[in-house]
């Protein structure tokens, strides 16, 4: 029997270029995302992170270049094959993208109902397992409008993992969340990697989260990959743009903390 070779890189991107009209958004991206690890793609606003994610997900057609996901070339792939590939991917969108007419549990069950012929009891059990993993079990009957920011993200995460995907994408998990909720989500992401052995790609600009969860980091700026490496390698990078990004973010954090402190003192006075 022929042994199927193990895929070392879950995703391989080569010379990816994306233009919006005359504007170049991504300019020759080359990136390898190792299987079974957490890859964080970080960069400032407008750096091209979200466009890169949309290209990987097949939501945006690149101008040129290639994207290979789990051994399948995405560009020019037949709709049926893309369909099959997407069943191996889970995506937690920045705003959650929960369906407002469905409860938390119904949102999570949707992929199971669409792609499997499981009976009602099995669907219920699987839903409860995933809800428990993200600490949302007590809130399964709530509607999306009744959820807080953190609860929305955790529900979106549960929906993304309900089919046990090989790849999990998480767009800006920390955005709009307070530090403690953000830290909880970071721990959840690490727990998912360890327990479900999936490749996780996180798009973020939050430095605290980046260095806490990442096995590998790709820093993106003005549509180009500025640096890739382990967190230690990124910290030690001699690339000025990378250092500027790291220190600017650090300064912003200090300024935010200072402003928060002053607001607290003002309130007490």
């Amino acid at each position, binding site marked *: 029997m022929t042994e199927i070779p193990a895929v070392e890189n879950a995703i391989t991107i080569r010379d990816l270029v994306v233009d919006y009209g005359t504007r170049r958004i991504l300019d020759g991206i080359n990136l390898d995302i190792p299987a079974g690890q957490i890859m964080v793609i970080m960069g400032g606003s407008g750096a091209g992170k979200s466009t890169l994610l949309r290209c990987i*997900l097949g*939501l945006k057609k690149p101008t040129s270049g290639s994207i290979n996901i789990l051994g399948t070339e995405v560009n020019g792939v037949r709709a049926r094959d893309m369909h099959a590939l997407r069943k191996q991917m889970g*995506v937690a969108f920045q*705003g959650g993208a929960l369906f407002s007419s469905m409860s938390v549990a119904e949102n999570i069950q*949707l992929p199971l109902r*669409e*792609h499997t012929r499981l009976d009602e009891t099995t669907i219920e059990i699987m839903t409860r397992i995933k809800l428990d993993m993200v600490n949302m079990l007590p809130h399964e009957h709530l509607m999306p409008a009744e959820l807080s920011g953190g609860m929305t993200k955790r529900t979106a995460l549960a929906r993304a993992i309900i089919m046990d995907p090989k790849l999990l994408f998480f767009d800006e998990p920390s955005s709009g969340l307070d530090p403690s909720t953000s830290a909880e989500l970071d721990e959840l992401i690490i727990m998912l990697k360890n327990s479900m052995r999936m490749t996780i790609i996180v798009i973020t600009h939050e430095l605290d989260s980046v260095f806490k969860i990442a096995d590998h980091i790709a820093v993106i700026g003005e549509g180009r990959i500025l640096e890739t490496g382990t967190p230690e390698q990124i910290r030690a990078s001699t690339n000025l743009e990378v250092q500027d990004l790291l220190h600017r973010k650090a300064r912003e954090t200090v300024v935010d903390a200072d402003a928060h402190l002053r607001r607290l003192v003002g309130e007490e006075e």
Partner: protein
Amino acid sequence: MLKKLENIGTYTLTGLEQTGRTFNLLLLVLWELARPPYRFYTIVRQIYFIGARSLSLIVISGVTIGMVLGLQFYSILERFGSVNLLGAGVALSVIRELGPVMTALMVVGRAGSAITAELGIMRITEQVDALECMAISPNKYLVAPKVIAGLISVPLLTAVFDSVALFGGYFVGVVMFGVAEGSYMNGMIDAVEWEDVRLGLVKSVIFGVLITLICCAKGFYMHLTKAGSQGAEGVSFVTTDAVVLSSIAVLFSDFLIGAIFS
């Protein structure tokens, strides 16, 4: 001058692009409908939303328009001493023209605008992208049930509109002005032929598909227009656009169908 020509060119190209996109959506919907799984429950839910929940509006507008027609026809026919033609006049106007057109316009105002707003919001909040990423076809899941529901609901609503409008005309003519009941009913039965009913049915079927398709396309493809980057304001813009465009499409296609079938 050159600027004006440029604007005309831009509007024409945008119009052609949107028409092509809407037609393409129809083809995609037909393709998706032919393939399993068949979403009967979702279609029933949409029929409830487009059809059942529009019923009160259709009944009220149908009775009112029937009464207005009865009133106007009576005052005109009385001058010529032909009030016995009242039933025929009301019935033919309602069955051939007013029934399908008014029903379609009412559905556009009530359900069409809601469809565009719903799909537009789903687009800007990445819910449509989420469906695609879950390997669920948004065309099949979101658009196709609405178009089928429009196809089924609008002819049924038109039948209701026609019935209550005829009753409205009867009420004004027979009950208020004392036209002989037999004269009203026989005039109606003699004048209306199967051809008239068929014309009304064909119109209502085409309007049903047309308005749901335009309203779906406006919301679904919102991200490809300028409104796509304007958030909530963009949704209100495409919703208004969908209502105006659907109404014009109904009136224009009414003329075309009338011309072809007459």
